[in-house]
């Protein structure tokens, strides 16, 4: 039991002693981050809006592709050169096209992309309304006309009379 307690204590304490060791090895890899954390934050915020063209479902911020790495370096450098976010985005769009943006601008070639879903939604709503209206009409319409009802009643009476 005592041994177990010691082991437990060791297991709990071990992680506490690790961070200094780890941070040493991390610090080496992350030199550019350490240089200017503010700029790095701005770079990541901007690159989260940008698509990595190599791995198309990842952002430049998230991708580990060499290409994303290069673009992060480019963005970092342009930010240190005091370029605004818009200037950097224009720079990238001029080279890679709107596809590099996760939020493409609204223009004639992207109209369907932006409004297609709403058009489909509207069409669905119209179909639904038409269907519901028709259905209500069908329910409201009496199944038998007045005359048919009388006929049926007469037939029923007749039947009763026979069986009695």
């Amino acid at each position, binding site marked *: 039991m005592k041994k177990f307690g010691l082991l437990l204590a060791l297991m709990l304490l071990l992680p506490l002693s690790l961070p200094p060791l780890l941070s040493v090895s991390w610090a080496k890899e992350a030199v550019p981050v350490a240089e200017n954390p503010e700029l790095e934050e701005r770079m990541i915020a901007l690159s989260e809006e940008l698509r990595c063209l*190599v791995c*198309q479902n990842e952002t430049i911020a998230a991708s580990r592709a060499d290409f994303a790495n290069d673009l992060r370096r480019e963005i970092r450098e342009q930010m240190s050169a005091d370029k605004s976010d818009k200037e950097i985005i224009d720079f990238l769009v001029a080279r*890679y096209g709107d596809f590099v943006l996760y939020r493409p601008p609204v223009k004639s070639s992207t109209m369907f992309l932006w409004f297609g879903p709403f058009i489909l939604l509207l069409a669905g709503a119209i179909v639904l309304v038409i269907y519901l209206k028709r259905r209500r009409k069908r329910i409201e319409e009496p199944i038998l006309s007045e005359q048919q009802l009388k006929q049926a009643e007469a037939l029923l009476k007749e039947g009763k009379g026979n069986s009695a």
Partner: protein
Amino acid sequence: MTRFLIPLAAFVVLVGFLVVGLGLNPRQVPSPLIGKPAPEFQLQQLHQSEKTLTSKDNLGKVWLLNVWASWCVSCREEHPLLVQLAKSGIVPVYGLNYKDQREDALRWLKQFGDPYTVSIVDPEGRTGIDYGVYGVPETYVIDKNGVIRYKQIGPVTVDALQTKILPLVKELQG
């Protein structure tokens, strides 16, 4: 009858979208650089590092710029075609060695043949960014005025060469 025709028509349209969508290559992103002047560069040559080549050196002729690297697998696929094209002398091919090591690049050219009139190096991929390169190999057709007229993303194929690149080169040279 319309009861079935309308959903059927909608379904057919959807299937049509799906078929077309599956046939598209998501890696073929249209380049905004087509019809625009080729970005300027001044880069070291691969074989003679003391010499440089600038984008302006080629003004007045139609040329191809092929972006390649020794680490790029599909570059090997297109390479025999480029060697053949260079031999034919129809159009000069310039190589942009992208994010590569000089020794590796030279060895690669020795092994597979060197189709390039001049090879230039872009070790950090900066000119690559200017040209919107995101997947080597890529090949640009640049006209006499230094305007990019076509971009092949991925390896040059016989089909691309015959149906697009060569006719365009002829038209531009004419």
